[in-house]
Structures are given as C-alpha cells and as structure tokens.
C-alpha cells in the first residue's frame, strides 16, 4: 500500500530531556523519522522540550516547538497547527503516555487527529499489566504468574501464595522506576509502597521471579498489510533479573539453537500481530536454560533503546522504516537503504558479533548503590563490533572510558575469594572485570556459572581470554601466529606489551614489522550477500579490507563516546554539526564514535562512519589508513581532548586551537600568567600536589575554598571545603583519584555565575550570547538554570564581559569555540574557568541565537575567518525573547545519591523554556523539567542556620501566595519569631509521625532543604531530600532556585491581596530587606 495521501501534516512528539531510561536514542530515532517524513513531502511539526538534540534543529522539521511535553501544551500546538496525524511512537514512553492522555481527554477526536503507528489499545495493552496478561493468555503465550496490586497488603498476600523471591514492576514508568526484586516480606512492602507511588495509576505487578533464565530480546517490525519481520535478536550476558538497559548484551543471540531462535521469533510475530502494531516493537523473553519453556517478560509497542541498538547493530534503520509504515507504506515496497536494491522486508544477517555495555554513573556517584536489578541505572551505553566475541567485547570495554582496556580491574587483585564469590553472585557494574580476576586465580567456569547463572558459553570465552594472557606471558617471543591470534581476540597493544614486558610502542612496531594491521569491514545488513554502499565500518584482524579511501581530502571528527553525567548529548549535537560543516566545505567527513544511541553514528550523517573505540590504538589505526588533512577534537568533550596529545605526538595535525594553548588554559600557573598579562581577575588560588601544601595554601586563602583535580569531566571530584579537616579528607581521596595531575585550590567567591560561549578565528571574537545562572557560583554550571539574555547585569558588566572574553580568546589564539565561566563577586567580575572547546551550552545557545555555532567554528578550523563567514566580532544582538535552560536529574533511579546541588555535576539532561518574559520562560522550563507549579499547597522548609536570614523573605512570599509552611522545630521557631504562620512537624529524632511520614503521605507539594553540611547519608537532610525524590516531589536545595520559582508563581498566578490598612503599625521587618 503506498503512502496515505490524506496525511499532509504530522505532529511528532519527542522524548524530552535525557534521563536514565530515556536517553539519546530518541534523538536518533526522532531525527530519522522527521527526515523520513519530510522526504515524503509531509509537513512535519515537532515538539520536544530538549534543546540539546539534532531533532529540534529547525532544518529537521517544518516547525519546531521547544515546549514542555504536557498534554496542555501539545493540545495548544494541535489547535494551532491542525495536523492530520500524530506520531507518538518515536518519543519513548513519554510520547506514548502523552498520546494516551490526549486520546483520553478527547483532544485527538475533537481536533480530528489520527494516531499513527500504533493504536491506543496496543499502548495500553503493552503497558497495563492486566490487559497484557489477558491478551497473552488469549494468544497462548506464557507469562510468569503474577498479580496486579493496588495495595501493599495485596502484594504480600500474593507473594505468600507463589513464594519469594518476587519481582515488582510499577505500571507506566520509565526504565522500571520504583521496581525491584524482593526476597522477603519487609523488602516487598518497601518496594511496593514506593512502586505504587511511582506509577501514575498506582498499580504494580507482582511477578514470579524467573531470575537466572536467559534473557533474549527480539526487535520486530510490522506494516498495515501484516507483513512481519525480525530485525535482530539479542542475548543478554546477564541472566534475567538485571534490567536490559543495565545488561551487557550480544547480538545476535549466541547460545540459542535454531529451534529456540525460531520458537521465540514465532512468538514475537504472534505478539506484534495481536497488538496490531504498525511499526516497530520490542519483545523481551526469559528462556529456561534447561528446556524449551519460556516466558514473555515485556513488550514495548514503540521504538526503544533496544531498537536503536538493533539499528546500529544491523544497519537496518528501524525508526526510519517505522515512520514510513506509519504513513501507509508497507515493508515490501520500501527499499533497504543499505543496499539500495533489496527491500526492507527481510531479516538482516549479521556476520560479526555486536557487544553492548552500559555506561553507569557510579564513577560520579560513589555513594550510589551499584547493584543492578530491575531498575535501570545506566546513563548511556557503548557498542562494539568484532569478528570474534572476544574482540567485540574488549572493544566495548575500552570504549567505556573507565580506564580499562581489558577485563581486569586493579582493585580486584586485593579482593578475597569470599569477596569475589559475593560480588559475582550479585550483579553490579564491575562483575565482568571481577570474572576476569576469578579466572586469573584459576577458579572454575562451573563455579562461576553456579554463582552468576551467566551462560557457560560466555564464561568460557572469558576464561579463554585469561588463558591467552598467560600464553603471552610465557611466550619466549611473540611470533606472528601468536600475535595475530591475540589481536583477533581484541587485545590492545598496550595490554600485550604489559603481559610481555614490552611497551605499547614496541608491540605496535612489531605488528607493523609483521604487517599485522586491522582491516575494515562493512556493516551491510546482509552478510555480504548483496553489494552495499553504506560507509559504515568496523575494524577487525582479517584478510580483506573493504574500506576504500577516497582521493578527496578528508577530516576526522572524534566523537564523545557514551552518554555520561558531564558529557551528554550536547556533545553529539556539536559533533553532528561539525560533520555537516566539513561536508559542506567540500571535505569528506569521517566520524569515529562508539555510542549506538546517537545521530553521529547514523551512517547517513558522515561520509564514513568508523564504529570504533575512542582509544588511542584504534583511532591511530584509522588515521593511518585515512590520512586525513587533520583531526577535530573540540566537539568530543573530554574524550576527544584526552586523545589529542597522543595524536599530536604521532605527528597528526589537530585542527583548530592548538594543543599548547589548550594546555595553557588548563595549567593553573600558565593560565594565571596569561590573565595577569591581560589584566583579568581570577579568584586567588594555587595548584598543589601534596596535602601539606594544600593546607598551607588554603589557610592563606581562607575558607570556604573550592578544590578540584586538574583535567576533569563535568566537575568530577570538585568540592567546596569549609575547614582544614574537610580539606584534608578531600585531599586524601582526590590524590588517590588522580596522582598524575595536581589539585587546584581556589578561594570560593560567592556571587552570580555567568557563562559565555564565543567563537574566535584567532583575531576576531564573536560572542553569540551571555548566559546568567540562577544558582550562585558553587553550583556546577551544568546543574544551574541558565538564563539568556542575562537579566540582572548592567551595561558595564556586559561590556567588561565582552572585553575579557575577547582578550582571553585572542590571547589563547583560539581557532574555534571557547567557553568561559565568570563570577560576579561584589561588583567585580572574575574568571572561574576557561574551556577552549565546545561546551554543553552550544546547542542551547545555537538555538536561541540562530547561530550554528559548531558549524561556524568548524569552518574556522578549516581555515575560514569570521568575516568570510559573514560575522563580525562582539556580542551578537540579543533576542527580545527570554530562554532558560533547566537541568533535569535522574535521582529517582539512583538510590543513596545526595541530590544537593554543588560543584559536582549531577544532572543527566536539560530542557528549554522560552517565552516573551522571564517568569513565563522559567515557568515553562520548570514545567518541562517535571517540576509542577501548584498555585497553592504545602511547602516543607528545613533551612540551615547560615541561610535562615536569606530564606525568610522567600518563605514570606510562599505565605503570600497561599502556601502552608511546614517546618521542624529549629526552622519553625525562626519563622514564628518573624511573625509567619508555620505548621510544626516532628524531626526524625522526635519519632513518628515525623517529617518523612508527611512526605510519604503525599501531603507535601514542595520541599526546600538546605541542610547540606556533612555528607553522611545518616544525616536528616539527606533523608528528607531522598524521601522527596523517591516520592516524586520537587526538592530544591538552592535558595536561588526557590527565588526564581517564587517570582514565576507570583507572575503567573494572580494574587489576592487585602487593602493596605490606613496606618501600618507593625510590619515584619524583613520587607525592607
């Protein structure tokens, strides 16, 4: 069936900010879908609150709305745009939930909008456990015994019947929020209570535990004519029990015989048909390792994280094809874009092994519980391709950028046998590495299998890798056969050298002497059966090289690897823009990256995609082959920058700002000198390498001080210390973190933080925009609400900012982007930090100013001047609109993590709010970030002594708005003294019912908590904050954020005020403050 011509205009819903469970994969899917619709002549209307995405670029859709993803806003867009259809299946669970809401409110019917891609029944059926189980029963597909519960009592009752352990899955939540496995009564009560709260319909599924079964996934596609295909199947390394987003995954399945494969394939097709899905769908199975029996775990009636992975793993563009199906096409009339000659109605054949490893945030959140279960914790993932499983897995390991290039971990050597047993039995992020240690100590596969239930096939592979290590160690010399065998297993030159007592360089030289180089093979969907034109490559050690280097000059762009806190999708955004600019400038753009979720690794984006680790050896191999005119490292975040030195040392040209200048900006002493030369102030400070030195410096500067190691990602390990004791304990930890680089200590200057992004061609400096942070300096810039244009700066301040930025950029001989952070302290501007590279704010600022910053910067790196590109120096005219960038956190997913904002970045994503005035923009931003703004309600305020004075006027404003203020004794007394009504609640130590009970009971709308000193989880402040987060209640830890919220509430809602009495005798004294 060809395209449905009654569809002229289609509304596409994006997935909103990046949170754990819903990440960049939806930018990739959304971008593909928009392109697929546009090329059909359909007018595409896009709505997404996330500015850091390619899909929200104005060239991706005919109209782009960056608005909060709420039914209200979407209804407004629907009324204004009158689309014929709504495509919700590419916006993750957010998109589906909104579609359900709009349909149930009658908006779709009333406005005549057709739901495309899937029908409402499929969405509710796949999400509502009861409906789902009924359907499975109808079509004869087995599901684990389970019960739907709405109360804790029901849950306990059911668990008594079927026995522990049981799995708890709340209905309608992202990434399994609030779920878990319980093996006894108390645990079950806790998880269910939590889960019910998370579920928007207060419903949980209690399920028989099938932990230990093999977990297998199928990606299925279907069209309106009922043609069905499987795109890919995948097998998890970790058995059932670990969320699939937190599992190491291989594609295709490795240990399934054809009978098992086809049995599950047939079941998958049956399900997509029963659900009447037109598009893509993901089915998860638990397969008994000892029989043909299996259970259906879950169906996702939409494009998902797994489908993004399947697309990259096979080359089959699921989102693109799903979009075409949604507008009426059938699979048998769509061409397979990879071969260009065969059809999309087929099942990809892989001739390689794909590995996916999740990237967890535990390096940032050391206090977090790193055990893995049904609630997803990873922020991103890496994928690698190899012709052996070992090669594929090791490539994935080194793509993670966790300092490992092998299945080993230094600390593990210190663990006892009992430690290993314990940690291999309970899945966590380090289990793969601990298994390496296990085999290195000579323990058996059988025992490891009994402990972990991981299939012996995988364990055997790990054991084999360890055996090869020993072979290298014992070999007298590395002959070509042994070296080839080892390289085919994916060992790095560095690891081989280490095992053989040689340097990495020596192994590399030896390899070259043997002419042992990797070849590049194409990912072509068809195992070479048909000619493919796709320039999508992976390296391996084989006979034939398929990558043809063109004669056209090329530029290599290093990507930013997996999404992690501090290095998010913003960097992929800039990377994609750089690629576009390179291609437009007449060069071939080559991208090296390993993140399966992103647009940069779509093979359509660049001229050649190398899906490879961003690891020195792998990158050098590609560069040696491609011989590009240069390499761009400015857009790949710290990942790319970390590689820059190694590349330069090999004589490879780095385009843009020179590395010497980058070093000058990162080196404390050199930078101080530079600032002195141009007369720019900086908070006093010094670089230290020992604890004694640190104490000496700090006592001279005075406390509080800001301490951080040099060379950091996202402010890792940065802290504000109040005392010598704090400093000492920090130094002990930090120096262990990074012994090679010194620790920087600065006087902490309280004040307004300002951020400037600029583009410089070496002579002229263009400042697209200045952003002012709502939260004062001390809160990481990535976690602050940024406002553009600044609202409280004087013209003199702005002029001085322009002057300083220009001077610094020119002085560093910047060629490309530069990001500078300032603090306005007692009316003087100080430079806090200079990053001579693309920053997190590039997409936000590009969108609000209309300057394609990364593209302009790329052109400069390729030799153009700003003038030639049509720009002049100075500050770009500010828009009349206000835009705010609001951070979004995933705290609910990470138990034991303190949510207090500080110098360490904690947010996973961002949203944008924009409108004609400040309050409206903030309102939209907060709303988009998931902070509801009720007109009235209850606010719990627990304020630290230091902030009490400052908090009082804010509390008064809450009172004026009609909020009830609830406080524990200390804060309450202070409030009462000031003449405000307050509702007292017990402290934790006073016993129940205490403050946590109030939060749990859902009687609170907002929590303001500034009890941050002392970071032990036992502290009450921590428990209050966690309780708020886990109950889905907004918790603000910065009074600046509170102020912004109040201003917004006061502006948005009309207030009721009595007439002023003729004579005012007693006014609270803080009014004048």
């Amino acid at each position: 069936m060809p395209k449905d011509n009654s569809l002229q205009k289609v509304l596409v819903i994006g997935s909103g900010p990046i949170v754990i469970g819903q990440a960049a994969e939806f930018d990739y899917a959304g971008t593909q879908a928009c392109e697929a619709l546009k090329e059909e002549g359909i007018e595409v209307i896009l709505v997404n609150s996330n500015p850091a995405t390619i899909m929200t670029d104005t060239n991706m859709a005919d109209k782009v709305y960056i608005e909060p993803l709420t039914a209200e806003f979407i209804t407004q867009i629907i009324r204004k745009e009158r689309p014929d259809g709504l495509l919700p299946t590419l916006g993750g669970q957010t998109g589906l939930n909104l579609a359900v809401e709009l349909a149930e409110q009658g908006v779709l019917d009333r406005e005549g909008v057709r739901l495309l891609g899937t029908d409402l029944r499929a969405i509710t059926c796949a999400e509502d456990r009861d409906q789902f189980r009924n359907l499975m029963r109808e079509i004869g597909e087995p599901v684990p015994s389970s019960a739907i519960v709405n109360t804790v009592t029901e849950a306990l009752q059911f668990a008594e019947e079927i026995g522990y352990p049981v799995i708890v899955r709340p209905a309608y939540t992202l990434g399994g929020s609030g779920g878990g496995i319980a093996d006894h009564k108390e645990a079950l009560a806790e998880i269910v209570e939590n889960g019910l709260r998370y579920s928007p319909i207060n419903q949980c599924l209690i399920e028989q535990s099938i932990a230990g079964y093999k977990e297998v996934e199928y990606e299925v596609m279907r069209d309106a004519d009922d043609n069905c295909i499987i795109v890919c199947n995948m097998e998890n390394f970790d058995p059932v029990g670990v969320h699939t987003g937190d599992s190491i995954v291989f594609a295709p399945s490795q240990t399934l015989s054809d009978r098992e494969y086809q049995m599950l394939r047939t079941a998958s097709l049956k399900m997509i048909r029963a659900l009447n899905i037109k598009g893509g769908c993901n089915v998860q199975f638990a397969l008994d390792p000892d029989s043909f029996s299996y259970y259906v775990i879950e169906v996702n009636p939409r494009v998902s994280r797994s489908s993004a992975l399947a697309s990259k793993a096979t080359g089959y563009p699921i989102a693109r094809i799903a979009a075409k199906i949604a507008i009426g096409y059938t699979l048998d009339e769509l061409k397979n874009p990879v071969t260009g000659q065969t059809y999309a109605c087929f099942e990809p054949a892989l001739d390689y092994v794909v590995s996916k490893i999740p990237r967890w945030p535990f390096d940032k959140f050391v206090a977090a519980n790193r055990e893995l279960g049904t609630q997803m914790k990873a922020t991103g993932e890496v994928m690698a391709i190899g012709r052996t499983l070992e090669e594929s897995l090791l490539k994935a390991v080194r793509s993670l950028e966790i300092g490992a290039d092998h299945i080993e971990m230094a600390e593990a050597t210190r663990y006892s046998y009992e430690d290993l047993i314990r940690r291999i039995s309970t899945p966590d992020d380090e289990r793969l590495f601990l298994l390496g240690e296990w085999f290195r100590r000579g323990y058996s596969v059988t025992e490891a299998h009994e402990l972990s239930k991981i299939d012996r096939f995988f364990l055997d592979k790990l054991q084999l890798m360890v055996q090869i290590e020993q072979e290298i160690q014992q070999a007298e010399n590395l002959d070509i056969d042994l070296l080839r065998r080892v390289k085919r297993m994916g060992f790095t030159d560095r690891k081989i050298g280490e095992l053989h007592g040689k340097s990495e360089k020596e192994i590399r030289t030896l390899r070259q002497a043997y002419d042992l180089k990797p070849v590049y093979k194409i990912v072509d969907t068809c195992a070479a059966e048909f000619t493919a034109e796709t320039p999508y490559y992976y390296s391996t050690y084989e006979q034939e090289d398929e990558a043809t280097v063109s004669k056209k000059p090329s530029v290599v762009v290093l990507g930013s690897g997996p999404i992690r806190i501090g290095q998010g999708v913003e960097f992929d955004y800039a990377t994609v823009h750089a690629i576009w600019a390179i291609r437009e400038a007449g060069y071939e753009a080559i991208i090296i990256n390993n993140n399966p979720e992103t647009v940069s690794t779509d093979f359509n984006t660049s001229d050649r995609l190398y899906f490879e680790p961003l690891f020195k050896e792998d990158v050098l191999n590609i560069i040696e082959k491609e011989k590009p005119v240069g390499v761009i490292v400015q857009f790949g975040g710290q990942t790319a920058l970390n590689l820059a030195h190694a590349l330069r040392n090999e004589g490879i040209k780095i385009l843009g700002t020179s590395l010497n200048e980058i070093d000058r900006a990162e080196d404390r002493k050199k930078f101080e000198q530079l600032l002195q030369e141009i007369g720019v102030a900086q908070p006093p400070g010094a670089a230290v390498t020992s604890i004694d030195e640190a104490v000496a410096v700090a006592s001279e500067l005075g406390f509080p001080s800001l301490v951080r190691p040099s060379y950091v990602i996202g402010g890792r390990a940065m802290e504000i210390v109040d005392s010598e004791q704090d400093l000492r304990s920090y130094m002990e930890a930090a120096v262990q973190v990074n012994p090679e680089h010194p620790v920087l200590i600065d006087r902490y200057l309280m004040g307004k933080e300002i951020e400037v992004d600029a583009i410089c061609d070496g002579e002229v400096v263009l400042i697209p925009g200045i952003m002012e942070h709502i939260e004062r300096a001390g809160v990481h810039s990535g976690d602050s609400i940024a406002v553009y244009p600044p609202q409280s700066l004087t013209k003199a301040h702005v002029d001085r900012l322009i002057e300083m930025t220009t001077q610094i950029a020119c002085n560093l001989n910047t060629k490309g982007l530069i990001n500078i952070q300032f603090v306005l302290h007692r009316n003087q501007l100080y430079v806090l930090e200079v990053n001579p590279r693309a920053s997190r704010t590039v997409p936000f600022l590009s969108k609000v100013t209309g300057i394609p910053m990364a593209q302009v910067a790329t052109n400069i790196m390729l030799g153009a001047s700003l003038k030639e590109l049509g720009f002049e120096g100075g500050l770009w005219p500010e828009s009349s609109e206000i835009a705010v960038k609001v951070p979004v956190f995933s705290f609910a997913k990470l138990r034991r993590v303190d949510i207090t904002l500080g110098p360490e970045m904690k947010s996973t994503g961002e949203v944008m709010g924009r409108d004609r005035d400040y309050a409206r923009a903030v309102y939209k931003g907060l709303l988009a970030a998931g902070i509801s703004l009720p007109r009235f309600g209850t606010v719990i305020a627990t304020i630290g002594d230091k902030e009490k004075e400052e908090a009082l006027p804010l509390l008064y404003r809450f009172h004026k708005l009609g909020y009830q203020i609830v406080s524990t004794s200390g804060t309450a007394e202070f409030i009462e003294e000031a003449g405000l009504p307050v509702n007292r609640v017990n402290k934790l130590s006073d016993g129940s019912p205490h403050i946590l009970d109030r939060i749990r009971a859902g009687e609170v709308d907002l929590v303001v908590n500034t009890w941050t000193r002392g970071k032990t989880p036992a502290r009450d402040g921590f428990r209050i904050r966690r309780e708020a987060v886990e109950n889905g209640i907004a918790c603000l830890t910065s009074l600046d954020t509170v102020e912004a919220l109040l201003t917004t509430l006061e502006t948005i809602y009309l207030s009721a005020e009595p007439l002023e009495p003729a004579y005012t005798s007693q006014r609270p004294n803080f009014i004048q403050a």
Partner: protein
Amino acid sequence: MKAHLLLEDGTLFTGESFGSEGEAMGEVVFNTSMTGYQEVLTDPSYANQFITMTYPLIGNYGISRDDHEALMPYAKGLIVREHATNPSNWRNENTISHFLKEHQILGISGIDTRMLTRRIRQNGTMKGIIATGSPTIAELTERLAQPLLTNQVEMVSTKSIHIAPSFGKRVVLVDYGSKYNIQRELVERHCEVITVPYDTSATDILKFKPDGILLSNGPGNPKSVPVSIATIQALLGKVPIFGICLGHQLLALACGADTRKMKFGHRGGNHPVKELRTGRTVITSQNHGYTVDETSLIGTQLEVSHRALNDETVEGLVHQTLPAFSVQYHPESSPGPLDSSYLFDQFIDLMEAFNQKGVAVYAKG
C-alpha cells in the same frame, strides 16, 4: 593442523583444520543463517558442496541428537571463521569438530569468510578444493581442474522404501534428498508417509494408492535426474502433487518449463518471498543454486504463485488445470522461519478436495 582452501579463480585461503583430515573437491557456497548450522550441515541438498557459514561463530550450542535433517551429513566440508570448542546448550551432546570428524567431513576455520562470500558474490559459485596438511598450490590447482560429480541425488536418496504408518492421508514422499522435517510436518498432520527412492516408477508409486505425492528437496541440477521428470509427467493429474525445492524444479521441467543455474543461489533463512495471491510477503528458508526460468513458463500450464522480493525469481508455481503446486523454498524450515508451514495445510486441503470431488485443481482464491 593447517588446511587450505583453493578456489577456481585462484584465491587461496589458509586456516586450521577442525574436521577430518584429507582432501576433497566441491562447489563452494555460502549460507547466511545465523543459527541452524547442524540442520544445514545435515541437509542432503548440500551433497558434494563446501558450505561457508557467513556468521563467524559456528558450533556455539553444539550438536544435538534431535536436530539432524538426515541420517548423516552429505556436505563435503564446512568453512567457518571460528568453531566453538566449548559449546553450551542444554541439548548439546557433541562439538561440531568432533561431529565432522565422525563423519569424515572436512572443516576449515580461521577463514575470512566475509571475503570468501564476497568472492562468490562477485564471481559466482565456484569449485574449490580443501586440503589439510601441506600440499603445493600446483598440485591443488591440477586436481581442481577435474569435473565435479553430478550423481548427488542417487547418492543421497533412500535405497529402499520405508513407511511411517498412520491412518491419515497417505503421502508418497519421493526422496531426492529429503530433509527430516518434511516428514515431521506431514506426520504432525497425521499423514502416513511412504518414502520411496528417487527413481521409483510412477506405476510403483501409484500402487500405494496415495492421496498425494510430495516431491522432496535434493541436491544439484534438476536436469541431472531426467528419470524423475518422466515419472512426474506420468503422475500429474492422477494424484495431488506438492513439490519442494528440487521437487519444484523437477515439476517445472516435467511441465515443459526450463531451469537455469543462478550466479550464487539463495542460501539462508532471511529470504523474502511474495505470495502473489494475497500480496503477503513471508520470510523463508532457502537453499537452491538453480531456479525455474520464468520466460520458459510461456506455453506451459504453470503459473507463478510466489516470487522472490529481491531478485524477482520464481519461488512458487501452481498448475492451472491439475492438482499440483510447488515452492522453491523450504516450508519445512529447519533451519529458518516457521512462517510457511501453512503450505503443508494447503497440501492436506488439496488432497482432501481431490478425494471428495475426484478431480480438483489447486484453487487460487
């Protein structure tokens, strides 16, 4: 031990032997199935061929007693990137290496199978020679000049008649190299299956008073078994006929159509085939190096019922006046998708209709 693979075009691959030792010559083909190596290896249609598995890891789940498609494998050799030495699956009983050795089949691993596949794609199916040990290239080249045998059907077909008794429809299965799963599909539908050698005469077949005849799959060029063409001609119209793979090609030849060799054939479990009557496309399991030439259908009583989506070759035929139909692919799967097993139901329906009316034609609507 080292092993070499030399192709007709002079390409030499060196790898490790993991099957039996020695030397053999055969036609080198590739199969893109990611699972099902055991079924592939024991499919008699691969007689005298070297099978290249494009998926690099072969043998992961071992060998199971239940997944054989014939009593023994007839392929000459297996070419893989890597064979599993420690297979893992609850039904595993043997390693693939040991299995090959037991059946004196050559195995060569460590080969850039993607490169080999690309060669075959570019140059077409080729002869090749695999030898373990260290023969010289000149020796191998000389031996490679010899022609390949063409009597594969004779080699793999049953030598005697055997019966799987039942009270359902009686089907004579003409064994050109039949896969077990054809019988399993029939037995599952309560058929009594009488398996007969490929050269059994029409008279002898009709003596069984069958309700239907199934012409099985089998190896090689259909024109190498002229005796069967005459037999099928004599059976046409007397009793419903269902042809699979080689059986499909023989039916076409019997009806006056022609077949031709394909450049590199279709082998794998991901081939889309369109059923013209419904417009539905199904994913099929395939293994054929020859195809019915569509232009040769003009003037015959045959009509195309199924067509390959990608290269538009004939994948199914139906006789316009007599109760006979056939498909080029494998509705019995094993390995491959189970989507086409409905064709066996169709065969049962056809036999039923024929019995009731005396004469019935496979109805197209």
